[in-house]
């Protein structure tokens, strides 16, 4: 049993293949249009996803607070003041705060049995690993019991492992920090993206803050219950603005500053920058997609142009087909099918090309980022619509021909 549309489809394909060069050139407009729409939307979408991902990361939800050293130096009347453990504890209880920790660190020489190295030594509290998004590689983290007992245990970063232990498992080995012996109980790697330009993010040693205060940082100008800065991570980026103002309130109260006084600390919150970057990226990809749509439209005009030429060229064929029994609707469908077949094939090729282009420009093999079904459907169906819309006029013209005149056409 033959399907009714089968012959129409076959003869449409046949007549497109009879003029391969022209068919290819006509298709080119649509191919480029679809590829442009697909690539632009998917590149835009991919870039947005990348940004959203980074926005969601701990790093992007982090803000830091440090004393305003420039103010202190300039006025002399107000030497910089550190923050207290109580400030940190209060901030930890704020709603929307994922983790908060004090920053208390200093560079010290680290000595193992065989070699020595310089690293940043951090005196940490219980929330430090969480706030810095650090995960234990080997061994275990420092417990709160160890913190309260001031034990001489240490967790070291991978750069220290590499330098002092040549990547051997150091858990259980001993090191001396500023001549005080510590036992290594674990190792950690910082999460990717935590890399501050030029600084090695993994060159650190973590010890209990209490131990540090009692035995290491004694000569430091900080008091026993003080930290140099505070690092705060919000539950989500949206919380950061509110947390910032609440932190500002807490710190002003702790320092006896009124609301209209200039603060002697600074809050560094980078999330606003990221959001505006995401917004401008969106505008850009919209602009590019518009350009793609315009080229698709131009491709459609090309299809119409070629179909009109084709109808004129094949006037006698149309007359003959009518003479041997074709209805007007048969002729209409014949040419419409040609336009649609042309558009479908171009649409598919365009999708392939667009995929390739976005793969190259996004530089990733991540299928999820490269192939968004809704973008594919959108760009493909716009090709189809273009085919139907721009194919209709020529097809309609063909179907309205008078067979007697058409047969005489030269």
């Amino acid at each position, binding site marked *: 049993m*033959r399907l009714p549309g089968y012959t129409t489809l076959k003869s449409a394909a046949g007549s497109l293949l009879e003029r391969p060069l022209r068919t290819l050139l006509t298709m080119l407009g649509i191919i480029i249009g679809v590829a442009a729409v697909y690539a632009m939307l998917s590149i835009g979408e991919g870039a947005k996803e990348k940004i959203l991902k980074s926005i969601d990361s701990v790093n992007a939800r982090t803000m830091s607070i440090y004393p305003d050293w420039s103010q202190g130096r300039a006025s002399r009347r107000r030497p910089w003041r550190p923050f207290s453990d109580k400030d940190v504890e209060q901030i930890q209880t704020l709603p929307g705060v994922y983790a908060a920790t004090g920053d208390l660190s200093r560079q010290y020489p680290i000595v193992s049995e065989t070699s020595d190295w310089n690293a940043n030594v951090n005196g940490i509290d219980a929330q430090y690993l969480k706030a810095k998004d650090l995960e234990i590689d080997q061994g275990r983290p420092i417990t709160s019991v160890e913190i309260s007992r001031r034990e001489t245990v240490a967790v070291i970063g991978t750069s220290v492992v590499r330098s002092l232990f040549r990547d051997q498992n150091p858990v259980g080995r001993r090191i001396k920090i500023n001549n005080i012996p510590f036992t290594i109980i674990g190792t950690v790697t910082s999460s990717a993206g935590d890399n501050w330009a030029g600084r090695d993010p993994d060159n650190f040693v973590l010890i209990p803050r209490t131990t540090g205060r009692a035995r290491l940082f004694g000569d430091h100008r900080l008091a026993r219950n003080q930290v140099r800065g505070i690092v705060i991570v919000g539950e989500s980026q949206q919380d950061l603005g509110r947390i910032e103002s609440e932190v500002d309130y807490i710190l002003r109260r702790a320092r006896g500053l009124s609301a209209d006084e200039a603060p002697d600390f600074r809050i560094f919150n980078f999330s606003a920058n990221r959001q505006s970057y995401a917004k401008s990226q969106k505008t850009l990809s919209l602009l590019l997609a518009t350009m793609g749509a315009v080229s698709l439209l131009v491709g459609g005009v090309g299809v119409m142009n070629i179909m009109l030429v084709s109808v004129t060229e094949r006037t006698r064929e149309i007359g003959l087909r*009518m003479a*041997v029994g074709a*209805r007007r609707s048969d002729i209409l469908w014949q040419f419409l099918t040609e336009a649609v077949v042309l558009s479908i094939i171009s649409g598919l090729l365009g999708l392939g090309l667009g995929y390739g282009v976005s793969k190259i420009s996004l530089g990733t093999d991540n299928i999820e980022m490269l192939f968004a079904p809704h973008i594919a459907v959108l760009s493909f169906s716009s090709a189809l619509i273009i085919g139907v819309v721009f194919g209709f006029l020529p097809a309609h013209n063909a179907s309205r021909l008078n067979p007697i005149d058409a047969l005489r056409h030269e």
Partner: protein
Amino acid sequence: MNTPLIKTENLTKIYGRGAAEIRALDGVDFEIESGEFVAIIGASGSGKSTLMNMLGGLDRPDLGRMFIAGQDLGQMSNKALAKFRNETIGFVFQQFQLLPKKSARANVMLPLQYRRPRREDEKALAEQSLARVGMSDRIAHKPTELSGGQQQRVAIARALVDAPELLLADEPTGALDSKTSTDVMALLKKLNAQGITIVLITHDADIAAYATRIITMRDGKITADERTEKAP
């Protein structure tokens, strides 16, 4: 006597209006029986082409009526006329009107493409039809690879493929040399002998002589209607 295959009553076609009015057909009445071989002869402008278009369901009369194979053509919708052309009429044109990029068989199959319902054996029918005109060995050839006479044979095979009741030939030898013309006319004669009704339009008396009946037209009117020999 049976009802005639073709019967026209006061068939009239008018082009233009008022003073510029031209009656391409002016009250034409005739009947053609099934199995006849009729030549309609006349000078250019005599109305013979208009008559042929009308007989083929490509044009409609302005006045009068026309019955072919029991169907009243004046009353038919465009759709019904398309079906009529498909099933009842086989056209043969002066310029052959073959699709240049398609094989002889594909050309012959063309009318079957518009048949409703479609037939399963389109290829076999086309090949049989080509055999009937002596073109079995040229099935896969394209028109450009065939001589004029061969092309016209393919065109005749196309007209015959769905067993029409009437073969309409419009100057079928107009584009052929005299030797080939003779061959093509002999073929038509043979087909008529097999029972196919043929109406032939020509301006050439020698060609018209192949027919068993000659209708002469002038200024849209029939001026003579004579039988050259007894109908078989």
